[in-house]
Protein backbone atom coordinates (compact mmCIF):
# COMPACT_ATOMS: atom_id res chain seq x y z
CA UNK A 1 0.00 0.00 0.00
CA UNK A 2 1.15 3.48 -0.85
CA UNK A 3 2.31 5.99 1.70
CA UNK A 4 0.12 9.07 1.76
CA UNK A 5 1.57 11.07 4.64
CA UNK A 6 4.91 11.21 6.37
CA UNK A 7 5.43 13.41 9.43
CA UNK A 8 8.86 13.88 10.95
CA UNK A 9 9.83 15.74 14.11
CA UNK A 10 6.63 17.73 14.36
CA UNK A 11 6.88 20.19 17.25
CA UNK A 12 4.54 22.89 18.47
CA UNK A 13 5.57 25.28 21.23
CA UNK A 14 3.26 27.98 22.58
CA UNK A 15 5.47 30.77 23.90
CA UNK A 16 9.00 31.96 23.25
CA UNK A 17 10.64 28.54 23.52
CA UNK A 18 14.18 27.99 24.71
CA UNK A 19 16.93 25.40 24.26
CA UNK A 20 15.85 23.68 27.48
CA UNK A 21 12.19 23.22 26.48
CA UNK A 22 12.89 19.79 25.09
CA UNK A 23 14.44 18.30 28.22
CA UNK A 24 12.21 20.21 30.64
CA UNK A 25 9.02 18.69 29.24
CA UNK A 26 7.62 15.32 28.28
CA UNK A 27 6.59 12.11 30.03
CA UNK A 28 9.80 11.94 32.05
CA UNK A 29 9.45 15.51 33.32
CA UNK A 30 5.71 14.90 33.77
CA UNK A 31 4.73 18.29 32.42
CA UNK A 32 4.52 20.13 29.16
CA UNK A 33 5.35 23.52 30.65
CA UNK A 34 9.02 24.45 30.40
CA UNK A 35 10.26 25.71 33.79
CA UNK A 36 12.99 27.80 32.17
CA UNK A 37 10.93 29.93 29.81
CA UNK A 38 7.31 29.18 30.68
CA UNK A 39 6.45 27.96 27.21
CA UNK A 40 3.96 25.17 26.70
CA UNK A 41 5.33 22.36 24.57
CA UNK A 42 2.11 21.02 23.02
CA UNK A 43 3.82 18.50 20.74
CA UNK A 44 7.43 17.49 20.53
CA UNK A 45 9.24 15.51 17.87
CA UNK A 46 6.19 13.61 16.66
CA UNK A 47 6.80 11.34 13.68
CA UNK A 48 4.30 9.12 11.93
CA UNK A 49 3.50 7.43 8.64
CA UNK A 50 0.08 6.94 7.13
CA UNK A 51 -0.71 4.66 4.21
CA UNK A 52 -3.60 4.78 1.76
CA UNK A 53 -6.80 3.45 3.27
CA UNK A 54 -5.27 3.03 6.70
CA UNK A 55 -6.76 4.25 9.98
CA UNK A 56 -4.14 5.40 12.45
CA UNK A 57 -5.19 6.04 16.03
CA UNK A 58 -3.65 8.64 18.31
CA UNK A 59 -4.63 8.09 21.90
CA UNK A 60 -3.79 10.05 25.03
CA UNK A 61 -5.34 12.11 27.79
CA UNK A 62 -6.22 15.82 27.55
CA UNK A 63 -3.11 17.89 27.00
CA UNK A 64 -1.11 15.02 25.53
CA UNK A 65 -0.80 16.89 22.23
CA UNK A 66 -2.86 14.51 20.14
CA UNK A 67 -5.18 17.21 18.79
CA UNK A 68 -2.24 19.53 18.17
CA UNK A 69 -0.87 17.02 15.69
CA UNK A 70 -3.98 16.95 13.51
CA UNK A 71 -4.52 20.71 13.87
CA UNK A 72 -1.09 21.44 12.43
CA UNK A 73 -1.69 18.95 9.62
CA UNK A 74 -4.95 20.69 8.76
CA UNK A 75 -3.19 24.09 8.98
CA UNK A 76 -5.34 25.20 11.93
CA UNK A 77 -2.11 25.77 13.85
CA UNK A 78 1.40 26.48 12.66
CA UNK A 79 4.10 24.07 13.81
CA UNK A 80 7.27 25.37 15.48
CA UNK A 81 9.42 22.74 13.82
CA UNK A 82 9.17 19.57 11.80
CA UNK A 83 8.11 18.40 8.39
CA UNK A 84 5.09 16.79 6.85
CA UNK A 85 5.04 15.37 3.35
CA UNK A 86 1.78 14.59 1.60
CA UNK A 87 1.93 12.21 -1.35
CA UNK A 88 -0.82 12.99 -3.80
CA UNK A 89 -0.75 11.03 -7.03
CA UNK A 90 2.78 11.52 -8.28
CA UNK A 91 3.14 14.81 -6.43
CA UNK A 92 4.98 15.18 -3.18
CA UNK A 93 4.02 18.24 -1.14
CA UNK A 94 5.99 19.66 1.74
CA UNK A 95 2.98 20.81 3.74
CA UNK A 96 4.52 23.35 6.07
CA UNK A 97 6.51 25.18 3.42
CA UNK A 98 3.55 25.76 1.09
CA UNK A 99 2.16 29.29 0.88
CA UNK A 100 -1.17 30.10 2.51
CA UNK A 101 -3.11 29.88 -0.74
CA UNK A 102 -1.81 26.39 -1.50
CA UNK A 103 -2.52 25.29 2.06
CA UNK A 104 -6.08 26.57 1.74
CA UNK A 105 -6.46 24.72 -1.52
CA UNK A 106 -5.36 21.46 0.10
CA UNK A 107 -7.73 21.97 3.02
CA UNK A 108 -10.61 22.51 0.65
CA UNK A 109 -9.80 19.82 -1.87
CA UNK A 110 -7.65 17.03 -0.48
CA UNK A 111 -8.11 17.02 3.29
CA UNK A 112 -11.18 16.64 5.43
CA UNK A 113 -11.50 17.41 9.12
CA UNK A 114 -14.18 16.49 11.62
CA UNK A 115 -13.94 18.34 14.92
CA UNK A 116 -15.22 17.33 18.33
CA UNK A 117 -17.02 20.65 18.47
CA UNK A 118 -19.40 20.99 15.48
CA UNK A 119 -19.13 24.80 15.85
CA UNK A 120 -15.63 24.58 14.42
CA UNK A 121 -16.53 22.46 11.42
CA UNK A 122 -19.93 23.83 10.51
CA UNK A 123 -21.33 27.22 9.67
CA UNK A 124 -24.55 27.44 11.68
CA UNK A 125 -25.71 30.48 9.70
CA UNK A 126 -26.39 28.39 6.64
CA UNK A 127 -28.34 25.17 6.15
CA UNK A 128 -26.89 21.67 6.39
CA UNK A 129 -26.96 21.44 2.61
CA UNK A 130 -25.45 24.92 2.38
CA UNK A 131 -22.50 23.78 4.50
CA UNK A 132 -21.72 21.07 2.01
CA UNK A 133 -22.34 23.44 -0.91
CA UNK A 134 -19.79 25.85 0.56
CA UNK A 135 -17.15 23.19 0.45
CA UNK A 136 -18.10 22.08 -3.05
CA UNK A 137 -18.02 25.70 -4.28
CA UNK A 138 -14.55 26.12 -2.81
CA UNK A 139 -13.49 23.07 -4.72
CA UNK A 140 -14.77 24.48 -8.01
CA UNK A 141 -18.07 22.70 -8.48
CA UNK A 142 -20.32 25.51 -9.64
CA UNK A 143 -23.53 24.07 -11.06
CA UNK A 144 -26.40 24.69 -8.61
CA UNK A 145 -28.34 21.55 -9.47
CA UNK A 146 -25.36 19.25 -9.22
CA UNK A 147 -24.22 20.80 -5.94
CA UNK A 148 -27.65 20.28 -4.44
CA UNK A 149 -27.83 16.73 -5.67
CA UNK A 150 -24.38 15.92 -4.32
CA UNK A 151 -25.23 17.50 -0.94
CA UNK A 152 -28.38 15.43 -0.78
CA UNK A 153 -26.47 12.25 -1.67
CA UNK A 154 -23.85 12.91 0.98
CA UNK A 155 -26.39 13.63 3.68
CA UNK A 156 -28.33 10.51 2.74
CA UNK A 157 -25.11 8.52 2.87
CA UNK A 158 -24.38 9.79 6.37
CA UNK A 159 -27.99 9.12 7.38
CA UNK A 160 -29.17 12.70 7.68
CA UNK A 161 -32.70 13.01 6.39
CA UNK A 162 -32.79 14.71 2.99
CA UNK A 163 -35.88 16.68 4.09
CA UNK A 164 -33.79 18.45 6.69
CA UNK A 165 -31.03 19.60 4.37
CA UNK A 166 -32.42 23.13 4.24
CA UNK A 167 -32.45 23.53 8.02
CA UNK A 168 -29.61 25.03 9.99
CA UNK A 169 -27.55 22.35 11.70
CA UNK A 170 -27.91 24.46 14.85
CA UNK A 171 -31.26 22.75 15.38
CA UNK A 172 -29.77 19.26 14.93
CA UNK A 173 -28.83 16.85 17.69
CA UNK A 174 -25.13 16.36 18.49
CA UNK A 175 -25.00 13.08 16.59
CA UNK A 176 -26.66 14.60 13.53
CA UNK A 177 -24.28 17.56 13.59
CA UNK A 178 -21.37 15.11 13.48
CA UNK A 179 -22.98 13.39 10.51
CA UNK A 180 -23.28 16.71 8.69
CA UNK A 181 -19.64 17.41 9.49
CA UNK A 182 -18.63 14.03 8.11
CA UNK A 183 -20.72 14.61 4.97
CA UNK A 184 -19.09 18.02 4.55
CA UNK A 185 -15.61 16.61 5.05
CA UNK A 186 -16.28 13.88 2.48
CA UNK A 187 -17.77 16.25 -0.11
CA UNK A 188 -14.56 16.47 -2.13
CA UNK A 189 -13.70 12.77 -1.69
CA UNK A 190 -10.49 13.63 0.13
CA UNK A 191 -7.80 10.94 0.36
CA UNK A 192 -7.01 12.11 3.91
CA UNK A 193 -9.51 12.54 6.70
CA UNK A 194 -8.68 13.83 10.18
CA UNK A 195 -11.07 13.00 13.00
CA UNK A 196 -10.61 14.76 16.33
CA UNK A 197 -12.63 13.19 19.18
CA UNK A 198 -15.66 12.90 16.89
CA UNK A 199 -17.72 10.71 19.19
CA UNK A 200 -16.78 12.29 22.51
CA UNK A 201 -19.82 13.42 24.44
CA UNK A 202 -22.35 11.56 22.31
CA UNK A 203 -24.74 8.87 23.56
CA UNK A 204 -23.35 5.36 23.25
CA UNK A 205 -25.89 4.31 20.62
CA UNK A 206 -25.12 7.40 18.56
CA UNK A 207 -21.38 6.80 18.98
CA UNK A 208 -21.73 3.27 17.69
CA UNK A 209 -23.52 4.37 14.53
CA UNK A 210 -21.00 7.12 13.81
CA UNK A 211 -18.13 4.67 14.26
CA UNK A 212 -19.84 2.16 11.95
CA UNK A 213 -20.28 4.93 9.41
CA UNK A 214 -16.58 5.77 9.60
CA UNK A 215 -15.65 2.14 8.96
CA UNK A 216 -18.05 1.90 6.05
CA UNK A 217 -16.56 5.02 4.52
CA UNK A 218 -13.07 3.63 4.89
CA UNK A 219 -14.19 0.44 3.20
CA UNK A 220 -16.03 2.19 0.35
CA UNK A 221 -13.65 5.04 -0.42
CA UNK A 222 -10.34 3.68 0.90
CA UNK A 223 -9.83 6.99 2.72
CA UNK A 224 -6.77 7.26 4.98
CA UNK A 225 -7.67 8.59 8.41
CA UNK A 226 -6.05 9.80 11.58
CA UNK A 227 -8.39 9.26 14.50
CA UNK A 228 -7.62 11.22 17.65
CA UNK A 229 -9.37 10.05 20.79
CA UNK A 230 -8.97 9.41 24.49
CA UNK A 231 -11.30 6.42 24.14
CA UNK A 232 -9.53 3.06 23.88
CA UNK A 233 -12.74 1.46 22.61
CA UNK A 234 -12.76 3.77 19.60
CA UNK A 235 -9.13 2.90 18.86
CA UNK A 236 -9.82 -0.83 19.20
CA UNK A 237 -12.69 -0.62 16.78
CA UNK A 238 -11.22 1.66 14.14
CA UNK A 239 -7.45 1.74 14.10
CA UNK A 240 -5.01 -0.83 12.74
CA UNK A 241 -2.05 0.98 14.26
CA UNK A 242 -1.93 3.29 17.25
CA UNK A 243 0.32 5.97 18.72
CA UNK A 244 0.14 6.72 22.43
CA UNK A 245 0.97 10.30 23.43
CA UNK A 246 1.73 11.88 26.77
CA UNK A 247 2.90 15.42 27.57
CA UNK A 248 3.43 16.19 23.92
CA UNK A 249 5.48 13.13 23.01
CA UNK A 250 4.81 9.75 21.44
CA UNK A 251 5.67 7.23 24.14
CA UNK A 252 4.61 4.08 22.36
CA UNK A 253 3.35 2.92 18.99
CA UNK A 254 2.36 -0.39 17.49
CA UNK A 255 -0.39 -2.57 16.13
CA UNK A 256 -3.53 -1.60 18.01
CA UNK A 257 -4.21 -5.03 19.50
CA UNK A 258 -0.59 -5.25 20.63
CA UNK A 259 -0.68 -1.81 22.26
CA UNK A 260 -3.86 -2.78 24.09
CA UNK A 261 -2.94 -6.35 25.07
CA UNK A 262 0.81 -6.05 25.56
CA UNK A 263 1.51 -2.38 26.31
CA UNK A 264 5.20 -1.71 26.87
CA UNK A 265 5.30 1.70 28.49
CA UNK A 266 4.30 2.22 32.14
CA UNK A 267 1.83 4.93 31.17
CA UNK A 268 0.13 2.80 28.50
CA UNK A 269 -0.14 -0.06 30.99
CA UNK A 270 -1.90 2.30 33.41
CA UNK A 271 -4.12 3.62 30.63
CA UNK A 272 -5.18 0.14 29.54
CA UNK A 273 -5.69 -0.95 33.15
CA UNK A 274 -8.05 1.96 33.73
CA UNK A 275 -10.29 1.15 30.77
CA UNK A 276 -13.88 0.31 31.69
Amino acid sequence: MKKILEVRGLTKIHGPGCPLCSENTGPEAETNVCVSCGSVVAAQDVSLDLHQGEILGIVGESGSGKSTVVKTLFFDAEPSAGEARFFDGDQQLDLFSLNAARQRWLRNHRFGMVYQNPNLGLNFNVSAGGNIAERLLMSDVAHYGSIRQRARDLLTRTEVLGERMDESPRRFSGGMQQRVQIAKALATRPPLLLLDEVTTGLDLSVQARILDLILEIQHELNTAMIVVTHDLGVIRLLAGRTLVMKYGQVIESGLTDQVLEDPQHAYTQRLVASAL
Partner: protein
Amino acid sequence: MKPLLDIDGLSKHFQLHEQQKLIPSCSAVKVTVYPGQLTALTGPTGSGKSSVLKCIFRTYLPSSGRILYCDQEGKVTDLAQASEYRILQLRRRDIGFVTQFLHCLPRKSALEITIEPLLARGVSLAEAQRRGRELLAQLRVPERLWAVPPATFSGGEKQRINLARGLIARPRLLLLDEPTSSLDPGTTENVAELIDTIKQEGVGILAIFHHPELVRRLADQTVRLQASSPGMPEPC
Protein backbone atom coordinates in the same frame (compact mmCIF):
# COMPACT_ATOMS: atom_id res chain seq x y z
CA MET B 1 9.71 -29.70 2.40
CA LYS B 2 10.38 -26.16 3.59
CA PRO B 3 8.59 -25.21 6.81
CA LEU B 4 5.85 -22.63 6.60
CA LEU B 5 6.73 -21.45 10.07
CA ASP B 6 10.01 -21.94 11.87
CA ILE B 7 10.22 -20.68 15.44
CA ASP B 8 13.42 -20.83 17.40
CA GLY B 9 14.37 -19.57 20.85
CA LEU B 10 11.10 -17.71 21.30
CA SER B 11 10.61 -16.23 24.74
CA LYS B 12 8.02 -13.88 26.09
CA HIS B 13 7.83 -12.14 29.40
CA PHE B 14 5.77 -9.23 30.58
CA GLN B 15 7.32 -6.34 32.40
CA LEU B 16 4.69 -4.79 34.64
CA HIS B 17 5.97 -1.35 35.57
CA GLU B 18 3.36 -0.45 38.15
CA GLN B 19 3.85 -3.69 40.11
CA GLN B 20 7.57 -3.75 39.30
CA LYS B 21 7.30 -7.36 38.27
CA LEU B 22 8.62 -9.50 35.49
CA ILE B 23 6.13 -12.19 34.55
CA PRO B 24 7.61 -15.00 32.46
CA SER B 25 5.37 -16.67 29.91
CA CYS B 26 6.99 -18.98 27.37
CA SER B 27 10.70 -19.48 27.02
CA ALA B 28 13.11 -21.01 24.48
CA VAL B 29 10.27 -22.33 22.34
CA LYS B 30 11.16 -24.23 19.19
CA VAL B 31 8.34 -25.10 16.79
CA THR B 32 7.95 -25.83 13.11
CA VAL B 33 4.79 -25.97 11.02
CA TYR B 34 4.70 -27.48 7.53
CA PRO B 35 2.15 -26.84 4.79
CA GLY B 36 -0.70 -29.32 5.00
CA GLN B 37 0.32 -30.45 8.47
CA LEU B 38 -0.80 -29.74 11.98
CA THR B 39 1.56 -29.09 14.86
CA ALA B 40 -0.04 -29.34 18.28
CA LEU B 41 1.21 -27.30 21.24
CA THR B 42 0.74 -29.09 24.53
CA GLY B 43 1.81 -28.45 28.08
CA PRO B 44 0.37 -27.49 31.44
CA THR B 45 -1.64 -24.33 32.06
CA GLY B 46 0.71 -21.38 32.30
CA SER B 47 3.35 -22.89 30.05
CA GLY B 48 2.67 -20.09 27.57
CA LYS B 49 0.90 -21.96 24.78
CA SER B 50 -1.46 -19.10 23.97
CA SER B 51 1.41 -16.64 24.25
CA VAL B 52 3.24 -18.46 21.47
CA LEU B 53 0.23 -18.03 19.18
CA LYS B 54 -0.14 -14.38 20.16
CA CYS B 55 3.55 -13.74 19.49
CA ILE B 56 3.18 -15.23 16.00
CA PHE B 57 0.20 -12.97 15.34
CA ARG B 58 2.13 -10.13 17.03
CA THR B 59 -0.65 -9.35 19.46
CA TYR B 60 2.23 -9.88 21.87
CA LEU B 61 5.64 -8.45 21.17
CA PRO B 62 8.13 -11.33 21.46
CA SER B 63 10.89 -10.68 24.03
CA SER B 64 13.47 -12.70 22.09
CA GLY B 65 13.81 -15.35 19.42
CA ARG B 66 12.83 -15.57 15.80
CA ILE B 67 9.58 -16.51 14.09
CA LEU B 68 10.31 -17.15 10.44
CA TYR B 69 7.33 -17.26 8.13
CA CYS B 70 7.70 -18.30 4.50
CA ASP B 71 5.11 -16.73 2.19
CA GLN B 72 3.70 -17.91 -1.15
CA GLU B 73 6.55 -16.33 -3.10
CA GLY B 74 9.10 -18.04 -0.85
CA LYS B 75 9.96 -14.79 0.89
CA VAL B 76 10.91 -15.32 4.53
CA THR B 77 9.77 -12.77 7.14
CA ASP B 78 10.76 -12.75 10.80
CA LEU B 79 7.43 -12.01 12.41
CA ALA B 80 9.20 -11.01 15.62
CA GLN B 81 10.89 -8.13 13.78
CA ALA B 82 8.68 -7.36 10.79
CA SER B 83 7.19 -3.91 10.27
CA GLU B 84 3.65 -3.26 11.39
CA TYR B 85 2.57 -2.89 7.78
CA ARG B 86 4.01 -6.27 6.85
CA ILE B 87 2.21 -7.89 9.78
CA LEU B 88 -1.08 -6.25 8.81
CA GLN B 89 -0.63 -7.47 5.25
CA LEU B 90 0.06 -11.04 6.39
CA ARG B 91 -2.93 -10.97 8.75
CA ARG B 92 -5.14 -9.91 5.87
CA ARG B 93 -3.74 -12.38 3.36
CA ASP B 94 -1.91 -15.27 5.00
CA ILE B 95 -2.38 -15.82 8.70
CA GLY B 96 -5.65 -16.64 10.44
CA PHE B 97 -6.17 -16.78 14.19
CA VAL B 98 -9.07 -18.45 15.94
CA THR B 99 -8.91 -17.26 19.52
CA GLN B 100 -10.54 -18.96 22.45
CA PHE B 101 -13.30 -16.42 22.73
CA LEU B 102 -15.24 -14.59 20.10
CA HIS B 103 -14.59 -10.86 20.17
CA CYS B 104 -17.03 -9.03 17.98
CA LEU B 105 -19.35 -6.11 17.77
CA PRO B 106 -22.67 -6.77 19.48
CA ARG B 107 -24.53 -5.22 16.53
CA LYS B 108 -23.25 -7.45 13.72
CA SER B 109 -24.95 -10.65 12.69
CA ALA B 110 -23.25 -14.04 12.82
CA LEU B 111 -23.09 -14.16 9.04
CA GLU B 112 -21.61 -10.65 8.79
CA ILE B 113 -18.93 -11.57 11.32
CA THR B 114 -18.16 -14.79 9.51
CA ILE B 115 -17.58 -13.18 6.14
CA GLU B 116 -15.52 -10.19 7.32
CA PRO B 117 -12.17 -11.76 6.31
CA LEU B 118 -13.50 -12.46 2.81
CA LEU B 119 -14.70 -8.88 2.37
CA ALA B 120 -11.32 -7.63 3.59
CA ARG B 121 -9.75 -9.61 0.76
CA GLY B 122 -12.04 -8.00 -1.78
CA VAL B 123 -14.49 -10.88 -2.36
CA SER B 124 -17.91 -9.58 -3.45
CA LEU B 125 -20.66 -9.43 -0.84
CA ALA B 126 -22.89 -11.95 -2.66
CA GLU B 127 -20.10 -14.49 -3.07
CA ALA B 128 -18.93 -13.98 0.53
CA GLN B 129 -22.45 -14.53 1.82
CA ARG B 130 -22.83 -17.68 -0.25
CA ARG B 131 -19.63 -19.15 1.15
CA GLY B 132 -20.50 -17.96 4.66
CA ARG B 133 -23.86 -19.75 4.61
CA GLU B 134 -22.26 -22.90 3.29
CA LEU B 135 -19.64 -22.94 6.05
CA LEU B 136 -22.11 -22.14 8.85
CA ALA B 137 -24.28 -25.01 7.65
CA GLN B 138 -21.26 -27.31 7.58
CA LEU B 139 -20.46 -26.32 11.17
CA ARG B 140 -24.06 -27.04 12.16
CA VAL B 141 -24.91 -23.50 13.21
CA PRO B 142 -28.74 -23.41 13.04
CA GLU B 143 -29.92 -21.24 10.17
CA ARG B 144 -32.23 -19.19 12.41
CA LEU B 145 -29.10 -17.79 14.11
CA TRP B 146 -27.30 -16.56 10.99
CA ALA B 147 -28.94 -13.14 10.96
CA VAL B 148 -28.63 -12.65 14.72
CA PRO B 149 -25.71 -11.07 16.62
CA PRO B 150 -23.87 -13.83 18.54
CA ALA B 151 -24.02 -11.97 21.88
CA THR B 152 -26.84 -14.24 23.09
CA PHE B 153 -25.41 -17.45 21.61
CA SER B 154 -24.25 -20.37 23.73
CA GLY B 155 -20.50 -20.89 24.20
CA GLY B 156 -20.43 -23.64 21.58
CA GLU B 157 -22.35 -21.58 19.02
CA LYS B 158 -20.05 -18.61 19.53
CA GLN B 159 -17.05 -20.86 19.15
CA ARG B 160 -18.33 -22.15 15.83
CA ILE B 161 -18.85 -18.62 14.53
CA ASN B 162 -15.30 -17.87 15.59
CA LEU B 163 -14.03 -20.94 13.76
CA ALA B 164 -16.05 -20.12 10.67
CA ARG B 165 -14.52 -16.65 10.58
CA GLY B 166 -11.03 -18.10 10.95
CA LEU B 167 -11.45 -20.77 8.30
CA ILE B 168 -13.50 -19.03 5.66
CA ALA B 169 -10.69 -17.21 3.89
CA ARG B 170 -8.42 -20.28 3.88
CA PRO B 171 -5.31 -18.66 5.34
CA ARG B 172 -1.96 -20.32 4.55
CA LEU B 173 -1.17 -20.51 8.24
CA LEU B 174 -3.88 -21.05 10.79
CA LEU B 175 -3.47 -20.55 14.53
CA LEU B 176 -6.08 -22.33 16.64
CA ASP B 177 -6.44 -21.71 20.36
CA GLU B 178 -8.70 -24.37 21.88
CA PRO B 179 -11.26 -24.22 19.08
CA THR B 180 -13.35 -27.08 20.49
CA SER B 181 -13.26 -26.43 24.24
CA SER B 182 -17.00 -25.80 24.54
CA LEU B 183 -18.32 -28.05 21.79
CA ASP B 184 -20.37 -31.21 22.22
CA PRO B 185 -18.91 -34.46 20.82
CA GLY B 186 -20.94 -34.33 17.61
CA THR B 187 -19.85 -30.81 16.73
CA THR B 188 -16.28 -31.55 17.78
CA GLU B 189 -16.35 -34.34 15.22
CA ASN B 190 -17.54 -31.84 12.56
CA VAL B 191 -14.73 -29.49 13.44
CA ALA B 192 -12.18 -32.31 13.35
CA GLU B 193 -13.38 -33.26 9.86
CA LEU B 194 -13.18 -29.65 8.74
CA ILE B 195 -9.65 -29.29 10.08
CA ASP B 196 -8.71 -32.47 8.25
CA THR B 197 -10.14 -31.05 5.03
CA ILE B 198 -8.24 -27.80 5.22
CA LYS B 199 -5.04 -29.69 6.06
CA GLN B 200 -5.51 -31.62 2.86
CA GLU B 201 -5.94 -28.31 1.05
CA GLY B 202 -2.42 -27.45 2.20
CA VAL B 203 -3.09 -25.13 5.12
CA GLY B 204 -0.42 -25.32 7.85
CA ILE B 205 -1.90 -25.32 11.33
CA LEU B 206 -0.52 -24.63 14.79
CA ALA B 207 -3.09 -25.65 17.35
CA ILE B 208 -3.78 -25.88 21.06
CA PHE B 209 -6.45 -28.50 21.75
CA HIS B 210 -8.54 -28.96 24.80
CA HIS B 211 -9.20 -32.61 23.90
CA PRO B 212 -6.13 -34.90 23.93
CA GLU B 213 -7.83 -37.25 21.47
CA LEU B 214 -7.89 -34.47 18.89
CA VAL B 215 -4.13 -34.13 19.26
CA ARG B 216 -3.75 -37.86 18.63
CA ARG B 217 -6.07 -37.75 15.70
CA LEU B 218 -5.02 -34.56 13.91
CA ALA B 219 -1.45 -33.73 14.89
CA ASP B 220 1.50 -34.55 12.64
CA GLN B 221 3.89 -33.17 15.25
CA THR B 222 3.54 -32.36 18.93
CA VAL B 223 5.56 -29.78 20.85
CA ARG B 224 5.32 -29.87 24.62
CA LEU B 225 6.01 -26.64 26.50
CA GLN B 226 7.38 -26.70 30.03
CA ALA B 227 5.91 -24.55 32.76
CA SER B 228 8.15 -21.50 32.96
CA SER B 229 10.07 -21.06 36.16
CA PRO B 230 9.01 -17.76 37.67
CA GLY B 231 11.64 -15.09 37.99
CA MET B 232 13.92 -16.65 35.39
CA PRO B 233 13.16 -14.96 32.09
CA GLU B 234 15.79 -14.76 29.40
CA PRO B 235 17.94 -11.65 29.74
CA CYS B 236 17.14 -9.14 27.01
